[in-house]
C-alpha cells in the first residue's frame, strides 16, 4: 500500500503562492499594457464621435476617420454631424433621431448613410447618448458609429431571397397545379417566367374540364408585373373558370371577365384566348375566342400553319368590347398552338424580334408531337434571346393523335 501524498506544509505567510498568482495575473495582463485610454479610444472597433448639443463635431476617433476618409481638421469645430449625412438622412436625423435623443437621452441602432470624404456612402448604425451637467443642461452627445456595410448587404440578399420565393409561389398559381391531361388528345404546356426569377410577370394558362368530353384551355397575359399584376392574373383565371361553366361560348367568358375587370379597382387589362374543346360523335371541335391576344395557330400538315379566330378587343379597358367565336373541326394530326407575346417579342442581341415569320417557319418544320413542339419552340426562343428572357413565355399545344395512339 502506498503512503498518502504529503499534505502541503505551510511555514508562516504563503508568500510564494501570492507571488505566483501575481505572476500569472501579470502575464495575463501583459498584452493589455498598450491599452492606455487614448489607444482604447482611437483604435476602438467602432467610430466614436463627440458632438456639442448643436451637433458641431468636437472630437472624432481614428476609426471614424479611417472609415469615412476625413481628416480631423475637416471635422472638428467645423462640421455638424448632420452635414455628413445624405439629404434624406438629414431629414430623418432632424425629425426622428435628434428629437429622440433630446427626449430620451439616447437613440439606439439608427441606420443612416454617412457621405464619406470621397463622396462614397457608408451605411452605418448609430448609438448615441446625450450627457447632461448637474443642472440638467445638455453638455455633449457621444455617438458610436458602426460600419453596417455587411449588414446592409446581407439585408439586400435576404430581401432578394424573399422576393424570389414570393415570385415562385405566385407563379405556381398561374398554371394548373398538376400537368393537365385531356383524354383522347395530346396536350403539352410550358411556362418560363421572365428575368432571373425575382420578378412576377403576368402570363398564365389554364386547362380544365367542364363536363364529359368538354374542356376549356385558356392562355393570357395581364399587363404589367409585380404583385398587383399577380392579383389580376388570379382574378382572370378564376373568373374565366366560373364563366366557362355557365356559358358555352368562349366569347361570353371573355365578356364576363371584361365586366369583372371594369368594376375592379385595378387599371390593369389583359389579353386572353379561350379555347373550348368538345368531343361529339367521334370528332373534336375547337371553338376559339380572342381578346386582344395573339391568335392561335392551327397546323394541319402538309399545309402551312394558319391562325384561327379573329383578334377581338383587349379585356378590361373598354365598356363595349367585341369578342367573336370561331369553330374549327379537328382531324387526326391537327395541332393547335397557343402562345403569349413573350415568344414573338423575344429579341436577339441585335434587337430583332423573333416575330411571326420565324414562328410560322418553326411550326411547319415537320410533324411534331405536342410535347416536342412546345419544348422545341421554348428552346429556340430562349436561344434566340441568349437565354435571357425579358418577358414571360407561356405555350400550350393540343394535338389530335393518330387513332392507333
Amino acid at each position, binding site marked *: 500500500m502506498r503512503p498518502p501524498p504529503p499534505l502541503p506544509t505551510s511555514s508562516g505567510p504563503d508568500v510564494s503562492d501570492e507571488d505566483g498568482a501575481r505572476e500569472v495575473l501579470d502575464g495575463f495582463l501583459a498584452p493589455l499594457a498598450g491599452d492606455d485610454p487614448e489607444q482604447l479610444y482611437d483604435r476602438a472597433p467602432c467610430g466614436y464621435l463627440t458632438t456639442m448639443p448643436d451637433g458641431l463635431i468636437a472630437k472624432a476617433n481614428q476609426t471614424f476617420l479611417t472609415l469615412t476618409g476625413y481628416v480631423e481638421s475637416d471635422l472638428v469645430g467645423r462640421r455638424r454631424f448632420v452635414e455628413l449625412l445624405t439629404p*434624406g438622412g438629414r431629414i*430623418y436625423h432632424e425629425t426622428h433621431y435628434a428629437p429622440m435623443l433630446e427626449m430620451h437621452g439616447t437613440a439606439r441602432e439608427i441606420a443612416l448613410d454617412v457621405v464619406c470624404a470621397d463622396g462614397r456612402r457608408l451605411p452605418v448604425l448609430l448609438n448615441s447618448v446625450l450627457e447632461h451637467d448637474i443642472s440638467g443642461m445638455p453638455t455633449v452627445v457621444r455617438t458610436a458609429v458602426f460600419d453596417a456595410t455587411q449588414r446592409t448587404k446581407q439585408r439586400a440578399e435576404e430581401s432578394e431571397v424573399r422576393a424570389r420565393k414570393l415570385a415562385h409561389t405566385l407563379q405556381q398559381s398561374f398554371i394548373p397545379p398538376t400537368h393537365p391531361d385531356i383524354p383522347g388528345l395530346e396536350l403539352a404546356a410550358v411556362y418560363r417566367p421572365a428575368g432571373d426569377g425575382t420578378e412576377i410577370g403576368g402570363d398564365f394558362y389554364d386547362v380544365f374540364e367542364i363536363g364529359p368530353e368538354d374542356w376549356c384551355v385558356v392562355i393570357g397575359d395581364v399587363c404589367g408585373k409585380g404583385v398587383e399584376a399577380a392579383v389580376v392574373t388570379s382574378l382572370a383565371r378564376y373568373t374565366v373558370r366560373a364563366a366557362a361553366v355557365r356559358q358555352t361560348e368562349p366569347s361570353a367568358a371573355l365578356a364576363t371577365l371584361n365586366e369583372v375587370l371594369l368594376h375592379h379597382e385595378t387599371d390593369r387589362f389583359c389579353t386572353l384566348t379561350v379555347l373550348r374543346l368538345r368531343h361529339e360523335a367521334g370528332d373534336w371541335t375547337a371553338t376559339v375566342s380572342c381578346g386582344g391576344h395573339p391568335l392561335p395557330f392551327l397546323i394541319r400538315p402538309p399545309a402551312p400553319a394558319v391562325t384561327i379566330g379573329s383578334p377581338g378587343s383587349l379585356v378590361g379597358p373598354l365598356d363595349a368590347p367585341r369578342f367573336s367565336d370561331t369553330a374549327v373541326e379537328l382531324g387526326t394530326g391537327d395541332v393547335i398552338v397557343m402562345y403569349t407575346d413573350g415568344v414573338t417579342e423575344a429579341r436577339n442581341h441585335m434587337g430583332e424580334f423573333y416575330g411571326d415569320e420565324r414562328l410560322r417557319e418553326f411550326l411547319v418544320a415537320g410533324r411534331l408531337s405536342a410535347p416536342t413542339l412546345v419544348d422545341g419552340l421554348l428552346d429556340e426562343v430562349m436561344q434566340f434571346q441568349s437565354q435571357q428572357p425579358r418577358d414571360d413565355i407561356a405555350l400550350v399545344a393540343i394535338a389530335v393523335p393518330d387513332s392507333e395512339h
Partner: protein
Amino acid sequence: MGVVGRFNVMVSGRPDGQPMVFAHGFGCDQHMWRYVAPRFEDEFRVILFDHVGAGGSDLAAYDPGRYNSLGGYAEDVLTICCELDLHDVIFVGHSVSAMIGVLAAGAEPERFAKLILIGPSPRYIDDGSYVGGFGESDIEELLDSLESNYLGWSSAMAPVIMGNAERPQLGEELTESFCRTDPQIAHQFARVTFLSDNRADLAKVATPTLVLQARQDVIAPVAVGEYVAAALADSRLVLLDATGHCPNLSAPDATAAAIANFVRS
C-alpha cells in the same frame, strides 16, 4: 370614436382661457411640446393632439385617401376646433403642421386669432429660383431611411395604446412611442409632407402670424422662413438662436419666450 380618442386630444390650462392648439410635425407626436406648452397653462386653454397615424391617435382612423394631401390634416384641425367649440384660436404648428395651420386658417379664417409657424416650409423641393433645399431623389432617400429604421415599431406601440393621462407613471412609457409610427403611415406622411407645394396657400391667409425660424435648420433654411414671412399678409419673422429643426426641443426657453411675446397681452 370622438375627436378626443381619435386624435388623443389632451386639454389643460385655464378652462376659460383663450385656446392655444399645438400641432406637432412629421415624425413625432404631441410630446414634442412638453417643454413649451405647459408654460402657457397659466393664462390659456392648452390643447395638444396627435395627428392620425402618430403617437396615441386611433390608427384605425387612418384613411390613405383622406391623408393623401395636407388638406386632410387641415380638416382634422378644423374638426377638433369645431368639436371642442374653440374660437379665437391661437394655432401653433411645428414643421409640416405650420402649413397644415395655413390651410386651416385659409379655409376658416374666422376661427383663428393668431398663427405661430415654427420652422415652416411651403415647399421642400427646389423649383426654379425657389430653393426649398431638397431634390426629389432626396425624398426617396428619406423613405429608405424610414424603411431601414422601422424595426421595433410594433413592440414600442404597445405602451402607447394603454397610455393614460390620468396615470402619470406611464408618462415615460408614453414617450417610448415618440418618433415611432406605423411604417406605411410614416411612408405616406413623408411623401405628402415633403412633396407638397403650399406656396400659393400663403397668400390666402390674413391672420396675424409669427414665423419662428432657427438660425441653423437643415430642413427649413432661413431663406425659406423669410419666404413664408414675406408671402403672408400680416406676419413677423423672429430668428431664434437655435440649431436644428426642433427649437421647441433644443431651445425651449427662446421658443416659449418668442411665442409669449406674440400671444400675451
